[in-house]
Structure formats: C-alpha cells, structure tokens
C-alpha cells in the first residue's frame, strides 16, 4: 500500500502503477429512511502475489466494498463514486458490459455461504464449465477436462466422478473448495474472498486457507480477504485495512496492526477477543456500546461514541471534526485525533501488556 493513494485528488485520473488501486471509493444507497453511507471514502493499493485483509464488524462496509470493486451493485439504486483501477483500467465509470467481461476472467469472488452461492439445480461441474466457456472459446469437452483439473487442484477426491455431483452432495468444506475452483478456473489475477471460512469448522478453515495460500503461490494472484476473524488475518494477510462505520480507520502492514496499532477501535478489537496463545484472562475487555447506524453516522470521528480515549484530545474535536487517515510511519495510516506519540505511549503502556 502506498501513501500516495490518500493524497490523490479526484481530478487526477491517471492510471496508477499498482495492480489494483482503489481511490476514495464511496458507495451510498438511497433508502426511504435516508442515505445509507455503506462505504464512505476508502483507498488502498494491492500488488500481485499479496494478500490484503479487510476486517471490521458486521455493517462496517467490508462486503459492500468488495461487491463495489466487482461491480456487482445495481447501478440504478447505488450511488458509487471514486475510482477502482485494475491493471490500468478504470472500473467505476466503465460500461457494465466491459466490467462483466473482466469479471471471472481477471477478477473473481468467493462468497461466504457456499450453499446459497451455487445453483442447486445444476451439477457442480456444469457450473464450472459455464464459467470457463463464457470467457474461453473452447468445446465443452475441453472445458470439462479443465473443470476436472480444477476440482482436482483444490483437493476434491475422485474429481472425475464428483464433477457430475450436485452441490447438495458436497459437504460444506467441499462446496467451498468447488467455489474456489469455479473462481479460479480462468486464472483470475484478483481474487476476492468474502468471509470464505466463516461458515466452516476450524479444521476445514485451516485447510481452505492453506489451499488459498498454495494457489496464490502458484498463480501469483492478488487476494482480498474479507473477514472478522483477526486470527485468519494474522495467518493469511500481508496488509490490513480496518474498517469501521464505512471508513478505513487504520491500515498498514499486518505487523503494524498487530504489534503497533494506532487506532482505539483496533485496540478494542485486539483486546476483546479471547486468545489461545496467551494466559487466560479473568475478564474479557469488550468495546462498550453498539456499532453506528450507517444512516446516522456520528459527527466527528465515527468511533467517538464508543471510544474511551477521548480525554487525550483537547476540546471536543472528537465529536465535531472528522479525523483524516494520516500516515503514522511509512505505509501505516490511522484515523485518530490523538497525537501519534501519545497513541504510541497508550499502546505500549496500556494496550499491549494486557493482550
């Protein structure tokens, strides 16, 4: 992730160097109750062979971001601004035809629930074959061979036989593997995995993450991994964006987030989870309160109603003025009014020892 992504203005529509570059993406949904600001200005870069983790609570805008990159929002009902550059091609302003051609070929997505994201009426193989033939002018026999090859690659036993099974004949873990096979059939350079392991058991989760890492090494693809599980992030990601209330509140290398976090929300996330690798604590330390409504986003810092560090900021800036996502050191950015040196002190003295 580079620092320039933040500084670039909307007018500067030059193709960036990065493989995927998202700049000031805003996705708003007008509803009867008001404008839902699901994503309110998020920027990041991603190179091939790297994995970016997007973490946050439900309703923080992480899935909406990924659907936005894929161009899967209904254009009529969505106000989408900002830029998404994929290998020098801008996607937000592109015609839907053009985006559709890229989808599947250059970018693919794995969804959370493998049962509802596969068609129950068609055989698993047929669904993979279709995905392949849309983008490649080949005979169905060739496509079928390719489908079997993919199923084999993702570790489905007896792929030649299982290719003719229906999704309900697969177990949860196998369905997720089949989803990955379908997503990878055209060798996409960008893979977006939206909570790919949330519905799975830990043992299967470990297998799927291992598989994604292996495939990434093989195809050198860029992966966006959306999850709420910080353990999965630590295991699989190189860079992390922490989202809260539709905004990126902190971003940086995975080590920055886990060893030098700079934003009270990230502190809260890290402190509130019970950990297997540490001494058992008598009490968990939750973040008080509830996540904000995206229709009525708090004034000032989005996190201010739940933040217990506001007395480190003079005056009432936390509730009146929205902080910018500013660099801390290098590519590590945080959105907080507290002075960076004070934040570092709080992390070292109060947060890190209690993790």
């Amino acid at each position, binding site marked *: 992730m580079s620092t320039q992504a933040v500084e670039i203005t909307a007018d500067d529509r030059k193709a960036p160097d990065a493989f995927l570059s998202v700049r000031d993406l805003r996705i708003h949904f007008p509803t009867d109750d008001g404008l839902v600001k699901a994503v309110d200005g998020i920027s990041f870069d991603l190179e091939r062979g790297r994995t970016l983790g997007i973490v946050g*609570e*439900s309703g923080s805008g992480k899935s909406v971001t990924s659907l936005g990159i894929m161009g899967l929002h209904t254009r009529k009902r969505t106000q989408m601004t900002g830029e998404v550059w994929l290998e020098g091609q801008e996607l937000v302003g592109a015609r839907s035809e053009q985006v559709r051609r890229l989808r599947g070929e250059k970018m693919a997505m794995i969804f959370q629930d493998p049962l509802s994201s596969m068609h129950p009426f068609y055989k698993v193989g047929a669904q993979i074959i279709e995905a392949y033939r849309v983008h490649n002018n080949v005979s169905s026999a060739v496509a079928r061979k390719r489908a079997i090859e993919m199923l084999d690659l993702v570790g489905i*036993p007896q792929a030649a036989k299982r290719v003719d099974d229906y999704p309900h004949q697969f*177990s*949860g*873990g*196998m369905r997720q593997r089949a989803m990955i096979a379908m997503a990878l059939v055209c060798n996409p350079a960008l893979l977006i995995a939206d909570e790919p392991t949330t519905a799975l*058991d*830990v*043992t*299967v*989760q*470990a*297998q799927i*993450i*291992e598989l994604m890492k292996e495939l990434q090494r093989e195809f050198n693809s860029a992966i966006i991994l959306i999850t*709420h*599980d*910080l*353990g*999965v*992030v*630590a*295991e699989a*990601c190189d860079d992390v964006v922490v989202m809260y209330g539709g905004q990126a509140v902190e971003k940086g290398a*995975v*080590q920055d987030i*886990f*060893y*030098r976090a700079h934003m009270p929300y990230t502190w*809260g*996330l*890290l402190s*509130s*989870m*019970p*950990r*297997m*690798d*540490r*001494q*058992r*604590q008598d*009490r*968990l*330390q*939750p*973040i*008080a309160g*509830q*996540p904000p409504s995206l229709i009525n986003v708090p004034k000032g810092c989005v996190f201010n109603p739940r933040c217990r560090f506001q007395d480190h900021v003079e005056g009432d800036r936390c509730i009146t003025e929205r902080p910018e996502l500013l660099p801390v050191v290098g590519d590590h950015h945080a959105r907080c009014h507290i002075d960076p040196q004070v934040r570092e002190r709080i992390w070292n003295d109060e947060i*890190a*020892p209690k*993790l």
Partner: protein
Amino acid sequence: MIELEKAAGAPGPADGPRPEVMLSVRGLTKHFPIRKGVLQRQVGAVRAVDGVDFDVAAGETLGLVGESGCGKSTTGRVITKLLEPTSGSVIFEGRNIEEFSRGQMRPLRRDIQIIFQDPYSSLNPRHTIGTIVGATFRIQGTKTEHGTKREVQQLLERVGLNPEHYNRYPHEFSGGQRQRIGIARAIALRPKLIVCDEPVSALDVSIQAQVVNLLEDLQAEYNLGYVFIAHDLSVVRHIADRVAVMYLGKIMEIADRDELYSVPQHPYTHALMSAVPVPDPDKEKRRQRTLLTGDLPSPINPPSGCVFHTRCPLYRTALDESQQERCRTVVPFLGEVSPGHLAHCHFPQPRADIAAATDQGTGDAVVGAGGSADPAAATAPGVPEEQQP
C-alpha cells in the same frame, strides 16, 4: 471445586469429597431413524449422540466443543428434553428426567433453561420483548412481587438493556441486544442450569466479549451451572471449567480446562487446537500445524473401531500395523489418563501445544501407552514462548 470433579462417568474410583453434582448424564444416545418405502420401515439411523457421559456441578461450566455435526447441539437439546433420548439417563438433582412426562417436566423447566444460537429466529417477531420475557412467568404461573412488568423491566436492566424498551419488537434491536433478550428470558425464573447453545457464535468480537462477560456475571450471581456448547475453542477456554471434546456423537476427551488446553491427550484435540489461527502474525508464520484431511464421516455409517481413525494423524504417521489394526477394530474406551482427564483413544499422548507454550511452559512429551514412537516430536514441536513486542 473443579479439581474434585473427577472421573465423569469413569469406572475409576473417585476418591475425596465430590462437589454436589447437579446434572449427571450417563450413556446418553440419540439416534434419528431413517425411514424408507411405503411401510416407512427403518433402514438405518443417524447416530447423532452415541454414548455420552458427563457431570455438571452447580456454579460450574462444562464446555462442549467439536465440529458441526458432532452431536453437541443434540446433546444440549436432550438435556433440556426438547428431544427424547434413545437410551441413557439424564439425572437432574437425583431425578431421572428421561422418564418424566410432559406434565411432570413442566415444573422442572424453571430449573433448566436454554439460550439459542441465533438471536434472530429464537425470538417471536410479532411479540414485544415484554411479552417474550414475561411469557415465562405466565406459563409457569409464577407470582411476582410487583407484577410481571416490573419484574421483566428489572431483568432487562440486569442484562444491560434499557427497561423502557419493554414495548419494542425484536427487529428494533441489534444481534447483541437480542442475545441479551434471550438471556433475560433464560434467567427469568432463576434456573439452576442453563444450556447455552452457541450463544455468541453469531456476534461480532467486540459484542461477543460483552455477552460472555454478562454470562459470567450471572453465573457468579445466581450460582448457575452452564453447559456451554460452542465450536470456538478460545471462547470455551475463557468461560469453561471443564471441557468435553466431541466427535461423531462421542466424547473424545474430557478434562479440566487448563489440563485439556495445556496437555491434550487425544490426537483429535491436538488437531482442533492446532487449527485455531492465532492473532499473532509472526507466531503464525513459524508454527507448524497438524492439518486434518478430509471431512467428517457420516454419522449414519460411522467408521469401525475408533471413529476418528479415518482422519487421525497419529494413525497415519506414527502407528505400526498391529496398532492400526487395533484402531480399526476395537472401540477404545474413555479411559482415565490422569485424575479427572479421560481420553477415548488407544494411544493417548500428551503434547504441548500453543496454549501450553504460553501458559505452563512446554510440557514434556512422554511416550504414551503402546511404546510407539513419539509422534509429538515428529508432527509439531512445542512452540517456545517469546517476548511480546
């Protein structure tokens, strides 16, 4: 108290005074028949729970963990008598509730309550939360000192909700708040035992911690016994006093929390713990894991001998022919490996795991029964503790 809670269901002698066991489950099985044809003849059975023994004392939490489909939720439902067991007994305060009729069961429901996983489908969307929580008093015919409304409002306040929201509907609340409503309903009649069926699995981490703390406070306040069903091993480690690991309807290992997490003996417990990702990127990069291959076998036709042998890393890598033969043909016995620690395995082996590395220091891997080569050393060396950044 927990240290004394020895040998649940074990033949081993329990010496020393036992704590007052509130719930005692013995040889519990639940098979769901599979019927086919016009005559609806039974052609098989899903052996969801297949011989489970454990005890829960007042004020104690028993964690039940395992993969989906291992029978942990079914066990919870049989204990609360939402399902009838196929065989075995559930003894609550000396009475075998398995023999109770619906009518006999009703007064007992005050003492045994349940909290469900999904806070969206477990609350009636057409009722206000006042009605939902108040229904328990109405059904049980319990007289309250200052009227039901007052009582319900006190309950709402106790679980951290605004009592003025008495007249609101479930859809007006977030997931965490709804789970609090479910908890208010469960504690309304001051039960002695609550079965918590994945109560925090659907919640975000920050909210999950709030609800876990609330459950702990309530336990301390009312001396509640919990059967805490979850698949998240780190949450169970936090809340449970004793932990039972289930696989295909059977208990694979049961022990006190610290013992189980520091010296797990069953290869399945090793594998489960090793699969949990640790929120520490540097540690993650260094650590080696025991990955289980394949999926859970079908409980309709479970493997012969030890049900875990088809996926067992120990079986594949460290056992010789004759030992493997034994795993395939002989059903192991839930035997005591150390006081209060039982493992359903022919070749139990202590292995220091990640938890152990930070908690008790690396435990010495001792070659277990059978004189086999030490698989612990071969598969995953204990991760030494390191300085925190």
